């Protein structure tokens, strides 16, 4: 069993063609997921049962089922439903890219909303009381006090979720998308060389992860600058 370096040299550029798709999946799902997460979190902490309850159920379902199943339900399952086929969003659901974005967004939204909620709950109550004592309204306290502090608290966990999201984009390969993993699998099927191809792909993902972690570390340090004595 030999390790064919020339194979890696050949395969790597081909796989890196898929990096564009990987990034699109990552960035779009992250942004849309964050928006969804903020909405869910606000519903969750609203105190009104008709908002909090649906949010809790949603989060429970999407965190309790495998993301692969969610992707399959959207990509394979939705076309079975008449109102999806006839609906205005059909072009979105017919396209594997659209389905992947939808599934990844819905999934990461659930996780991130809990992360944001953890941040909000972690804000020292005394600080909010001081805000109240000074006469700040509920809205003012949330914007000027809760949000900045919660963002800093939530960042480590949020960073981890972004990295998870990067890894989840690889599952797009299961619904015919030619991201890096999709291309890799095709190559392996052609060349019967799983070691060279998959290991080099793994290294690419590890490098991407490393870049993400360094960037997040920088953001963490910026947000935490008031914590340095």
């Amino acid at each position, binding site marked *: 069993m030999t390790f064919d370096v020339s194979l890696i040299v050949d395969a790597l550029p081909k796989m890196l063609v898929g990096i564009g798709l990987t990034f699109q999946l990552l960035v779009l799902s992250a942004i849309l997921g964050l928006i969804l997460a903020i909405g869910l979190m606000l519903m969750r902490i609203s105190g009104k049962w008709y908002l909090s309850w649906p949010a809790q159920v949603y989060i429970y379902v999407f965190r309790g089922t495998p993301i692969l199943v969610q992707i399959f339900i959207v990509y394979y399952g939705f076309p079975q439903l008449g109102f999806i086929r006839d609906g205005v969003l059909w072009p979105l659901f017919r396209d594997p890219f659209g389905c992947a974005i939808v599934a990844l967004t819905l999934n990461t939204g659930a996780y991130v909303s809990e992360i944001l909620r953890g941040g909000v709950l972690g804000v*020292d109550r005394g600080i909010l009381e001081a805000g109240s*004592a000074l006469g700040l309204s509920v809205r003012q306290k949330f914007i000027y006090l809760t949000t900045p502090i919660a963002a800093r608290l939530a960042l480590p966990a949020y960073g981890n979720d972004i990295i998870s999201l990067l890894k989840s984009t690889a599952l797009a390969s299961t619904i015919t998308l030619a991201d890096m993993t999709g291309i890799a699998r095709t190559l392996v099927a052609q060349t019967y060389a799983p070691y060279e191809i998959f290991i080099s792909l793994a290294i690419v993902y590890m490098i991407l992860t490393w870049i993400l972690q360094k960037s997040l570390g920088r953001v963490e340090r910026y947000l935490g600058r008031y914590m340095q004595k």
Partner: protein
Amino acid sequence: MTERILIKMQHVDKFFGTFQALKDINLEVSKGERVVVCGPSGSGKSTMIRCINRLEKHNAGQIIIDGKELTDQVADINAVRREVGMVFQSFNLFPHMTILKNLMLAQRLVRKIPKAQAQATAMEYLERVKIPEQADKYPIQLSGGQQQRVAIARALCMKPEIILFDEPTSALDPEMINEVLEVMTDLARDGMTMICVTHEMGFARSVADRVIFMDAGEIVEEAPPEAFFKAPKNERTKKFLSQILTH
């Protein structure tokens, strides 16, 4: 001349679940008065003053601030909080803002004061508490005593009618207590109306117009400091004083 009655509490009760924290509290504080509240832990002192700015909601009785009754109406509560300042045991400075921003935030958001004026006011009160050079630092960089003085300045920036102090020196290292008490004494001398929950009996003696002793949710005794410390009338007061004044 009848002084303006700023705080009037009538037959106030407060429950936490089944536990009664305040029992039939009756209290009047006029403008210019300095009131000190003392008593053992769990006696309800903090709860009482926290009801005044509605950080706690009273369950029975009336609380009337400067003629307006405290209710659940948001407008009422915010009107009260503008005029009633509070200094907390754990300072509660906003950690993510500089000292200056800490002092300016409420001025701009609540009193809608423009930035330049708010900043000028902030610097004025920072000088009053004797730490103007800390303006651009973050709270974490200041000592406990400095942080509490900033907290006092922050309350003062809102130009309140009365300031409530909730055990302002209890969380401080001993060597820093004096710097805070000095600031509070200066304030009192300048005529600031205040209700101060504290264990610092020296402060009570020198500054207070009235000392109130609370125990188990009730106001047990009320008297000017001379009478209070020299000739307490109630048995419970005597017991408390003997416990804290012997060492």
